[in-house]
């Protein structure tokens, strides 16, 4: 193997194949992914996904590195028992009737990057918007996680909270008091909580056939659900 040009050609071919077929082409195809319109059982037009996440709060999630401990991905049954965990889907009943479905590409539509996560040092957050509906719970938890779960190893995000003097009866959204002072959520804390409340990735979804890349349909007539997956 003495010629540089032959060697480089070999590298280009061997690496170029996966680069093209695994990375570039899927990226290009995925760029045209849009919301899918479908008809539900009553004949109403619904869209999948139903809602988007709160973008400003996601910036705080990104800056604080929450994805280092929390995932946002429900695994399919062959990969894990995520679907069976109580409260990890839209169904918040004590005994849900169906397992939570696996996450799909369109669940993350509109986000600049899917923070699927790398570790679960804390629960999955894809559907925490269904699980926790009280802003104050989130604020108390972010301010001092161990006041809610003594075993928790989550860091305290009190740097997102502002200390101010208690005036009158005190602020209604104060998370803690410290003598004459109280802690209230700062703008980043509020944005983060709004984002967490918007995490509802278990919207009803039509059964799609293999290949999630479907042209966004403009009119209802052609927006048929594909064969059952």
């Amino acid at each position, binding site marked *: 193997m003495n010629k540089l040009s032959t060697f480089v050609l070999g590298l280009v071919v061997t690496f170029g194949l996966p680069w093209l077929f695994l*990375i570039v082409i899927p990226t290009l195809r995925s760029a045209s992914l849009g919301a899918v319109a479908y008809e539900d059982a009553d004949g109403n037009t619904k869209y999948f996904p139903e809602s988007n996440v709160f973008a400003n709060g996601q910036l705080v999630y990104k800056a604080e590195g929450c994805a280092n401990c929390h995932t946002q991905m429900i695994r399919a049954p062959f990969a894990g028992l995520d679907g069976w965990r109580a409260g990890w889907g839209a169904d918040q009943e004590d005994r849900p009737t169906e397992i939570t479905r696996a996450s799909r*590409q369109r669940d993350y539509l509109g986000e600049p990057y899917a923070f699927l996560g790398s570790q679960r040092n804390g629960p999955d957050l894809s559907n925490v918007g269904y699980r926790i509906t009280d802003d104050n719970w989130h604020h108390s938890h972010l301010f001092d996680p161990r006041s809610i779960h003594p*075993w928790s190893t989550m860091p305290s995000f009190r740097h997102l909270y502002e200390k101010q003097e208690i005036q009158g009866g005190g602020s209604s959204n104060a998370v803690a008091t410290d003598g004459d002072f109280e802690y209230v959520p700062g703008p980043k804390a509020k944005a983060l909580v709004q984002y967490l409340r918007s995490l509802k990735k278990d919207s009803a979804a039509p059964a799609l056939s293999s290949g999630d890349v479907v042209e966004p349909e403009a009119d209802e007539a052609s927006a048929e659900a594909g064969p059952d997956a």
Partner: protein
Amino acid sequence: MNAESTAETNEVPLELQALRAGVDKSARVPVLYFLTTAVAWLFVSAVLGFIASMKSHTPEFLGLDCLYFLHYGRVQPAFINAFVYGWGIQAGIGVMIWIMARLTRAQVPSSKILLFAGVLWNIGVTLGVFAILWGGSTSVEWLEFPKWVWPLLLLAYVMMSVWVVLLFKARTADTVYISVWYFLGACFWFPWIYGTANLLIHHFSGGAVISAGVDGWFISTLILLFFVPVGLGTVYYLLPKVLGRPVHSYQLALIGFWMLAALSGWTGMQKYMGGPIPAWMTAVGSAAAIFMLIPVGVVALNHHKTIKGFHHLVGASPTIRFAVFGAMAYTLMSVVFACMSLFSFSQLTQFTYAQGGFNTLALYAFFSMCMFAAIYFILPRISGCEWPSGRMISTHFWFSTYGLSALVVCLFMAGFSQGFSVQNPENWANSFWGPVVKSGAWLKGTTVAWGFLLISNLVFFVHVILMALRLGRKTTDGPTLFPAGESH
């Protein structure tokens, strides 16, 4: 045993010695710069790694309000980026340039420009690490530096890798050595991978999920197409060099190289198996990882046959000992990679500390130990003196070994305890205390391991600085070996 000096000086003609001296002199300034700053970054990242590991079980460690930026979500990415870019890639460049210069017998041209590239690289990494701690992290694994950092690093890297190619083009040696293919490969692959990942995640994203897939691909190909080639190329150089005998089989090496080249680009997306990434992409990654056991086995066989009969040198020669450790860790890391790519095994290891265990095996147990082997070989040749203390080398080796073994075992055990808890059907209605509480003890073990690694890295850093300042032993009685009496 004077194996190293025997291979180098006693039977070598005078012209070759002069040629080598010329090459070493031309490489001195840039290689010394890369290696010393890399080792400094290694120490810095060990400090960050220690803090991250403390924070993983005791979040209120250093819990002052003014130190809020040291929480796990910021300090963990700061640690891994400092390790990968500050230490890993820079050490790889320094070692590649010197070995390439020696193998091609070409002098390093215009070393000032190379130095400038190195300074640019360090500026980028420094700004990036500070930016992560100050809240500018992108939360894209191993690409957490803010968007404006990567063009700087890519430019610096291209400048540095152009030098490696220039050395190749200026070669006067007849044969092209195995290490040369691996190094040329690393120089070629890294810009392609780094540029693609950054462009397609930060700038021309095809969508949220596919970007996450590209990130998974980036992490895997960075390991397999930069760290592995640099590490293997280093071992393929050092073993024959110190032992004074050639690599066992050129043919096996050829197979090992091209299979690595062909398979690695397909891997990476399996870290998100079961998720929103199209299933064929994760499956292809798993399949490639399992096929890769073939080239790994081939390389292991080749190394084993090369060193057969000389195992006693592991006792005396620092270079051989670190290189053999690294080469064995490569085999282990690849087996673990294949296992973690199996859907069944991955149920326990996905989204757990086991991933950290694998990263440690790949980046530290394999790559960094190979780099240490190379640094112990290279520095005497560019600073004109021998390592001052065999005892310090021994401390470095043993504390690294204890620390790494403990770290890898504790991370995998923590990972399994998390995995078993999450996968236990009886925990379906429990809050998440299971994985947290059950991994706690193992995480404390990782902190003890980091303590050992901090000590080993401090000792190494001091030792390297002494050599860089040319304060080593000025002697002609051969290289510094492990203290007499150290067994195996």
